[in-house]
């Protein structure tokens, strides 16, 4: 952690967090400013969530890449259990689910940690899918068969496969001396998480300020086209300004990456909203106060991570 860019990034994020915390506390102490107190409370809870997120990430980064991959593995595991809990599976899926949780998910993350892209890129989407289909068929329950197995597969792909591309950034060959050695990979991962969080916030802010046209009123009552456009533009700008933190990126490439990350994050949020609406719930769980479930927090990053990973590969190679 002695690269000047790493220190600058940490200092910047810390300053920003302190600043928003101060604003949040100020608003809390002065309820007479004409701002909705419920909104202030939500704002403060969100800030607390960011502190927790940053502390956990900092600890994992400090412990190294194995710890970080393990952390993401645990997050995937928890998100998947939230996903399957909400998904009505039948008793015939029990054995298949057992192997999904205790064999496929851990093994996938082991492969990610070993940087075996050739295996892990097909392990879940192909082999786990075939296994789930066959195991549920052998269990002898054909009711709503395709529906049940498709749900398990969707959970695996979103919660485990897609999310694992975030820690996979740590294994990309970008750690040149000029980029700052291994620090570069951790900065790249943090860059992605920062952009996703920022895009989420901007989506909310722009929707509140300019929001007119809802994208799909039946799915989400807060996501508007104006919010999406504003969030994509702001995130592209932030990414371009922070290009120095993400080693292989040029400023214009970083801007494109920011834009794509914002759009993918939006897609993730919409997708999870649709699933939640169908199941008639608001949040996936109650682990961190004010942050719903784990899956509510990571839906955007699940969708953005694989695209960002492959963009980075493209930029590095070209």
């Amino acid at each position, binding site marked *: 952690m002695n690269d000047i860019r790493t220190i600058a990034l940490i200092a910047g994020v810390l300053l920003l967090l302190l600043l928003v915390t101060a604003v949040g506390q100020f608003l809390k102490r002065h309820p007479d400013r004409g701002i909705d107190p419920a909104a202030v409370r939500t704002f403060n809870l969100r800030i607390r969530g960011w502190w927790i997120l940053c502390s956990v990430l900092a600890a994992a980064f400090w412990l190294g890449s194995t710890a970080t991959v393990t952390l993401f593995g645990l997050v995937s595991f928890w998100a998947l259990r939230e996903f399957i809990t909400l998904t009505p599976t039948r008793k015939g899926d029990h*054995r298949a689910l057992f192997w999904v949780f205790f064999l496929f998910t851990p093994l996938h993350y082991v492969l990610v940690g070993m940087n075996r892209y050739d295996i892990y890129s097909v392990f879940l989407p192909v082999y786990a899918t075939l296994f789930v289909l066959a195991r549920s068929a052998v269990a002898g329950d054909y009711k709503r068969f395709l529906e049940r197995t498709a749900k398990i597969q969707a959970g695996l792909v979103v919660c485990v496969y897609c999310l694992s591309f975030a820690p996979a950034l740590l294994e990309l060959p970008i750690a040149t001396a000029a980029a700052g050695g291994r620090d570069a990979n951790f900065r790249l991962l943090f860059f992605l998480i920062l952009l996703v969080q920022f895009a989420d916030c901007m989506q909310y802010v722009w929707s509140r300020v300019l929001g007119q046209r809802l994208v799909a009123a039946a799915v989400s009552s807060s996501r508007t086209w104006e919010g999406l456009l504003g969030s994509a533009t702001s995130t592209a700008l932030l990414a371009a300004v922070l290009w120095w933190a993400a080693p292989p990126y040029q400023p214009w490439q970083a801007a494109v990456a920011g834009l794509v990350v914002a759009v993918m994050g939006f897609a993730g949020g919409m997708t999870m909203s649709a699933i939640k609406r169908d199941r008639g719930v608001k949040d996936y769980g109650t682990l961190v106060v004010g942050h719903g479930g784990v899956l509510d927090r990571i839906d955007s990053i699940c969708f953005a991570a694989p695209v960002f990973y492959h963009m980075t590969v493209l930029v590095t190679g070209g």
Partner: protein
Amino acid sequence: MLAPADLSPPPHTQPVSRTALCRLTGLGLAGLARLLAGASARWIASQPDTCQRVYFANHTSHLDALLIWASLPRTVREVTRPVAAKDYWSGGVVRRWLAQEVFDAILIDRTDIKVHQSPVDLMLREAGTNFSLIVFPEGSRSVTGEVGEFKSGLYYLAKKRPDIELIPVHIDNLNRVLPRGEFLPVPLLSCISFGPPLWLERDEAKLDFLARARRAVLSLKE
């Protein structure tokens, strides 16, 4: 809550002093079960208390009693004894040790019920004036996940000891964690809800009371 004075002296009035190994196993299993079943405990218009109670719950999985026991605060746990089936829990050395030493369970013989030695009498004698009980009034685990009709034991418990608080407990999703007939668990999230206490009303008929108790469990499902 005062206990009737004319009760015959219970077998043990103090929480049994168990060996360190048993305590540790109990703590470990409680932690493991809660982790594996992602259990969150909710107290709805109800509070944990060490006063004498009967927790009655829907029965969906082998993990039910363990998880209710694990969801109670430690002080309450020490005075709470699950009621379990003798035919299952005395089969094998490990199971017998777990039931008798670790959970201090009251084992009921389902196959050989005698008139002069009814399960309810046995439960009350073992409970004495200190211990709370965990019972499953359906009698056996439900296959479909629906809550079946309650057997009459709960009514006789309430009739013989009207001073004991009856706490309805609803167990959600545990039948998916470990369904009947499976031995490998799937780590989904489950929820244990404790409701407000109820008592047998004066002149309340048996069937009315059992239906009311069953509704109390179902109402915790939301």
